[in-house]
C-alpha cells in the first residue's frame, strides 16, 4: 500500500509526495517547480542540505556527507511522515 505525505517547504509551498514512486525529496521539490540547491545528487557533497523542522525521513542511499542533527540530504532521502522543511 502506498502512502502519500504532505511536505511543507520554506513555510509556503505544500507538496504531496508519494515515496513509493522512487523519487527523492529533491526530485519531488523540483517536480513542483521549486528552486533547489544541489551539486552531486549522490549524497556525498552535502549541497542539498535541508532543515527538517518536523517529521521524519529515510535514506534511499546512505549519505557520505555530514548530516548535522535536524538536517537531511534531500537528494537521497524520502519522507516517512508529513514534513515541514526549510530548503
Amino acid at each position, binding site marked *: 500500500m502506498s502512502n502519500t505525505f504532505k511536505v511543507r517547504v520554506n513555510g509556503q509551498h505544500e507538496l504531496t509526495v508519494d515515496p513509493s514512486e522512487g523519487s527523492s525529496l529533491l526530485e519531488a521539490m523540483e517536480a513542483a517547480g521549486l*528552486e533547489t*540547491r*544541489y*551539486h*552531486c*545528487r*549522490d549524497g*556525498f*557533497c*552535502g*549541497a542539498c*542540505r535541508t532543515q527538517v523542522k518536523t517529521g521524519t525521513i529515510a535514506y534511499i542511499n546512505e549519505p*557520505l*556527507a*555530514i548530516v*548535522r542533527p535536524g538536517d537531511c540530504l534531500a537528494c537521497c532521502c524520502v519522507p516517512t511522515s508529513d514534513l515541514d522543511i526549510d530548503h
Partner: protein
Amino acid sequence: MSYSTFNKNQINPLQEPMFFGNSVNVARYDQQKHSVFEKLIEKQISFFWRPEEVDVSRDRVDFQNLTESEKHIFISNLKYQTLLDSVQGRSPNIALLPIVSIPELETWIETWSFFETIHSRSYTHILRNLFTDPSQVFEDIVINEEIQKRANDISKYYDDLIFYTQLWQTHGEGEIEVDGEVHNVTMRELKKKLFLCINSVNALEAIRFYVSFACTFAFAERDLMEGNSKIIRLIARDENLHLVSTQNILNLWQYGKDDPEMKEIAEELRDEALAIFMKAVEQEKEWAHYLFQHGSMIGLNEEILCQYVEYIANMRMEAIGFDAPFKQRNNPLPWMNKYLVSDNVQVAPQEAEITSYLVGQIDSSVSASDLGDFEL
C-alpha cells in the same frame, strides 16, 4: 615523542582519537572507529581518472580565438588552481600523517593527497596543449602578487602545524628556542594549530576553487574550451569529496565524538575559525575583481561571481555549524549545477571512468536466485 613508522606498542585503534594519539601501526580496515573515512576512500578510488584520457586538442584553437581579457581570465585561473593543488598534493601528507592515529583516516589522507597530484598533472596536460612552452605560466605562479597573497594564507596554517609538530617530535613538550625565538610547545597548543589548519583546508576545499570553476563552466556554456571543462568537472567532483572529509573531521570534534579536548578547542576558537572562512570569502571576491580587471566575459561578471561566492559560502558554512552570513540564498549561476552533478561527469563512455559503473561494481550484490534460470 619521536615518530615511528611502525609503532610496536599494542594499541586499539578503535579507542584512539583521530589525531595526536598513538601513531598507527597495522593498516587494517576490517574495523573502523570512523567508518566515513573508509567509505570516502572507496568512493574516491572509484572516481579514478587520468588527465590523458581527456582530449583537449580542440581547446588550442578555441584559446587562440579568445579575447585578451578572456585569455587573462583563463590562464590566471589555471595558475591559481595549480597553486592550490601544488599545496594540497603534499600538505595533508606532511602535516597530518605524522600525527594521525587511526588507520582509515591515515589512508584517506594519502588517497586525498594522491588525487590532488592527479589534478596538478592535469593542469600540465592542459597547458602543454595550449603553449609550446608553458614555462612562463608556471614560473609566474611564484612571482604573481595576487597569487602570492593567497598562497600565504593557504600555506601558513599548514606550515605552523608542521613546524610545531617537528619541535614536539624532536624535543617533546616545553619551551624550545630556535634561532633566538622561544616556542612554547604544549599538546593543547598543537591541537589548536591542528584545529585552525583543518578549518583553513576546509575553507580552501569549500570555496577557493569555485570562482575558477565558474569561469571554466561559463566558457563551456559557450562551447569553448570544452576539453578543459571536462577535466575541471572531474576535479570538482573530487574536491567535493575532499570537502566532505574536512567537514566530517570538524563536526566529529564539535559534537564531542572524538577527542574531548578538541571539542573544547572548537568552542574556544570558534571566532578564529569563522574569521578564516570569511577571509577566504573576501579573497575569492578580490580574485574575481582581479580576473575581470581587463573586461568581463559573456555570461559572467564580477558582481555575479561575488554573489555566487556568497551563495556557496552560506551552504558551506552551515555545514560546519555557522549561521549563513550572507543574504544571497538563490543561486545566481543556475547552470553551474549541471557541471557539478556527479553522474554527468563523463568524458567518452568507452574510455571514461563513469561513476555509476564503478560504484556499481563495488556495491554489486548477486543472489543465487538471480542465476536461477541460467543453464549450461
